[in-house]
């Protein structure tokens, strides 16, 4: 199934005390159902392997953005991406005006260890999670283990990106909006802290439902009766496709405000193109045989070797929901439920992961701003990487 990691790749990980996590406001990640979330081992990567991962992120970003621009020009491709016509105006405006305003995403790769080729599984283009784990827990665990972190400072790189983008209008505040899940709120809080440290000024973390959106006037929150605070920048911890498909008024209101320049939204709306897994099918078509890409198609028969196994994924899915793994063209060996079962599916050749002697599959990730940065890792001993995966701290070998 994969190359088994030799034991020198995995060392025992210290356990962090819940009290330490509570001090960071992050005991959610160590308690309750998350007690086993952090793995009991640390993965050791060579510097060369980490560098290659980050380079892969940069390459993938260029490649997917080029594909996105190309696909935007063709109705048939837009249909495959799942972009409805009424979203086009905003996306085209965004490409025209916000192409360099990308804030944050995260690449997930198979391979990358012990010479196994890196293969792009997917890009979490719009709401990249694992920030508390990577920015707070991982450095502390590695330090406590007496190991060295990989070179490069992902937090400093993220901070630089926030500084470059700037806080926007000075007569309004900024908000990171989420939809209530504690993991989302914790990730939002990491973004808020970066924003404030980058000199953005007051940046609130607020549940989206508590924000008032007026397409003529802007984005507000009522802090007292008849007293409102206006936000000139919205950092969303919900993806554009959520607004587009599940809250159409939200999408339309944001579109009006963004195009009238009454509100800056990050990530910019063109990110929607990279959220669609169908873009990977276009990328494969445009770059057949590219070493970073897995063959991907809109139907399994268009894959070069469908009988070798493929993964069926919803076009705008998340966290492994509604993903299925099919071998031999017909044997469904794994399937997950979820909210995305009605979506158009995309088919990706089964990737070969690095595994260990307990059949854990290791998925390496790197973050993406205008440049790729940082390394983190999750593992799971099942076919489909989902929320049950463990977070594996990474240190330099």
């Amino acid at each position, binding site marked *: 199934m994969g190359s088994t990691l030799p034991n020198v790749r995995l060392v025992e990980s210290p356990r962090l005390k819940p009290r330490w996590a509570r001090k960071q406001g992050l005991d959610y990640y160590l308690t*309750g*159902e*998350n007690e086993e*979330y952090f793995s009991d081992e640390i993965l050791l990567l060579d510097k060369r392997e980490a560098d290659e991962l980050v380079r892969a992120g940069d390459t993938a970003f260029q490649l997917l953005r080029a594909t996105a621009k190309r696909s935007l020009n063709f109705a048939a491709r837009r249909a495959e991406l799942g972009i409805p016509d009424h979203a086009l105006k905003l996306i085209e405006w965004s490409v025209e005006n916000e192409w360099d305003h990308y804030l944050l995403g*995260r690449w997930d790769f198979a391979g990358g260890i012990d010479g196994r080729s890196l293969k792009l599984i997917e890009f*979490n*283009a*719009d*709401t*990249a*999670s*694992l920030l508390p784990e990577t920015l707070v827990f991982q450095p502390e665990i590695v330090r406590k283990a007496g190991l060295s972190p990989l070179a490069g400072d992902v937090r400093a790189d993220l901070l630089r990106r926030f500084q470059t983008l700037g806080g926007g209008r*000075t*007569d*309004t*505040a900024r908000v990171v909006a989420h*939809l*209530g*899940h*504690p*993991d*989302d*709120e914790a*990730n939002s809080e990491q973004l808020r802290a970066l924003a404030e440290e980058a000199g953005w*000024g*007051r940046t609130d973390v607020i*549940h*989206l*439902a*508590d*924000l*008032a*959106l*007026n*397409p*003529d*006037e*802007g984005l*507000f929150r009522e*802090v*007292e009766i*008849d*007293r*409102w*605070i*206006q936000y000139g920048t919205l950092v969303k*911890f*919900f*993806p554009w496709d*959520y607004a587009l498909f*599940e*809250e159409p*008024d*939200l999408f339309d*209101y944001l579109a009006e405000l963004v195009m009238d320049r009454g509100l800056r939204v990050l990530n910019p709306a063109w990110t929607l193109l990279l959220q669609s897994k169908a873009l990977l099918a276009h990328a494969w078509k445009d770059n057949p045989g590219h070493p970073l890409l897995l063959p991907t198609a809109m139907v399994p028969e268009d894959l070069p070797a469908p009988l070798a196994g493929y993964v069926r994924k919803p076009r705008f899915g*998340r*966290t492994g929901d509604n993903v299925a793994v099919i071998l031999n063209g017909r044997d469904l060996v794994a399937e997950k439920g979820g*909210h995305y079962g009605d979506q158009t599916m995309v088919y990706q050749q089964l990737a070969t992961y690095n595994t260990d002697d307990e059949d854990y599959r290791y998925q390496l990730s790197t973050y993406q701003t205008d440049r790729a940065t940082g390394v983190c890792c999750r593992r799971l001993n099942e076919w489909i990487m*989902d*929320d049950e995966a463990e977070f594996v701290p990474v240190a330099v070998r």
Partner: protein
Amino acid sequence: MFLKTYLLPGIVLSALALGLLSCGSDPEPAGETLEVVQEPTEGIVTTVEEVSPDDWKITDETKVATPADSRLILHPIDGPSDTLTMAQLKMMETADSTRYSDSQRSAYRYGSSGLLWFMLFNRMGGHGLNRNAYANNQVYNNATATRNNLNNSARTTTRTRTGFGSKSGGAARSTSGSRSGGSTRSFGG
């Protein structure tokens, strides 16, 4: 009455301090807190009568087409009736008020305490009507009814929406729930 909704930036709010706006307990810095107010788009002609020396009562308030058309008509005990335009009324709050007579300034103080206040300060909130300013219950009740009409119509013109995402996970503001489940969906990727 059709009303527009607009916003006062923080710096204008502080200039309008005038005791009209309560200082909130929310600690946002100056310049960043905005107040959503409703701006009248019709005007008022207020008539005041001096019922005794330096004591004026509002005897009539009639809507007119625009705020700029607002007037204060004064009937002093002695002397001819007079009419002050909106431009003149706005000067009463400035150092230029000295160019006006005592009678005019006195009439302004009483007359502006009714519906004319909203036109003068271009907002529908932050001011209550005082029964004592009115000559009788009928005039006062008419003023209250007019003010209520203004507020009601203002609400129907706004396109503000809140509550986006409140159906995305049941207990949307719950702090419980695991990474892998719970009542609220995660949108992280």
